[in-house]
């Protein structure tokens, strides 16, 4: 199929896009937490695939290679500092409401807002490892290959991300 894509076969491209679009959007959205930016990052990623496909020599799996491209495209669109983080009063209000009754008081929208806010507090490196491991289910070795870092670094970043999220989302977790 990749060979057909190289030759400019429209159907092969449609197949690749249909097969990998969901994966790309999941990763991009969970890193960026912004629908439009994630959509643009996904488009950028597929264009990168098109431009780099000539150089892809099957030394790594296409899936791993594709993850690397998507992560890079998403990180490139990440603002230098969190732009949509909650201000202090909003944060306190959400946390207090969540603490009162995490199951019924905090609506799905507010819960999502809290998750948005919490993940945006993580440095991009930790966030990326967290998304790839916890939400995409990649192994440490795969994450290491995608990000080009040692396995020990993957383990360390993941542990720190988990600990930080535990602190930030404590009100959501207090109910057990």
């Amino acid at each position, binding site marked *: 199929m990749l060979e057909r894509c190289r030759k400019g076969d429209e159907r092969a491209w449609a197949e690749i896009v249909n097969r990998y679009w969901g994966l790309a959007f999941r990763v991009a959205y969970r890193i960026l937490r912004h629908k439009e930016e994630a959509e643009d990052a996904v*488009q950028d990623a597929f264009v990168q695939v098109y431009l780099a496909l000539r150089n892809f020599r099957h030394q790594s799996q296409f899936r791993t290679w594709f993850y690397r491209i998507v992560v890079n495209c998403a990180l490139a669109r990440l603002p230098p500092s969190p732009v949509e983080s909650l201000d202090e009063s909003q944060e306190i209000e959400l946390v207090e409401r969540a603490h009162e009754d995490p199951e019924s008081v905090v609506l799905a929208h507010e819960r999502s807002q809290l*998750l948005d806010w919490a993940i945006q507090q993580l440095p991009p490196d930790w966030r990326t490892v967290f998304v790839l491991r916890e939400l995409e289910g990649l192994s440490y070795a795969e994450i290491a290959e995608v990000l080009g870092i040692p396995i020990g670094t993957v383990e360390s970043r993941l542990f720190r991300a*988990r600990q930080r999220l535990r602190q930030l989302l404590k009100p959501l977790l207090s109910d057990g």
Partner: protein
Amino acid sequence: MCEWQRKVSVYLDGMLAPDEIAAVIAHLKVCDECRKAMTEWQQIRRQFLMESLPTSPAMIAATLERLEREGAFRTSNLRSQIQRLDLWFTRLDIAFRAAMAVAVLVTLLLANSAAPVLRARDAFQAKIQQAIRLIPLIHSNESEQVNRR
């Protein structure tokens, strides 16, 4: 913080070396702090996985359009043939609709132009009918005159 927590994190991912697994399991049985941490990490994962993603099929179409603009592929022969056929069907449809409209218009015009002729025909037929109705009267008058003579 318990110094075992980092190992518990790796254990949670199933990435721990086999000889360390038994030690971590034994530790988890006696350490509330590590058990709590593991439970909360699992809860956090569930919270994120429960989220619905704001996707739509139009986004996939937009990605394909972008790739086409970037020159990843040219519209295939099959697709262009389908597009041409579609264009022809559209043209035929327009032509058929136009022909139907013209036919209706002509019919209406003909109906209007035939109206005086039809009226004349109806008047003529009415006069003939009237004449036919008068024939027995004329005949009976003539008979009465003959009898009087």
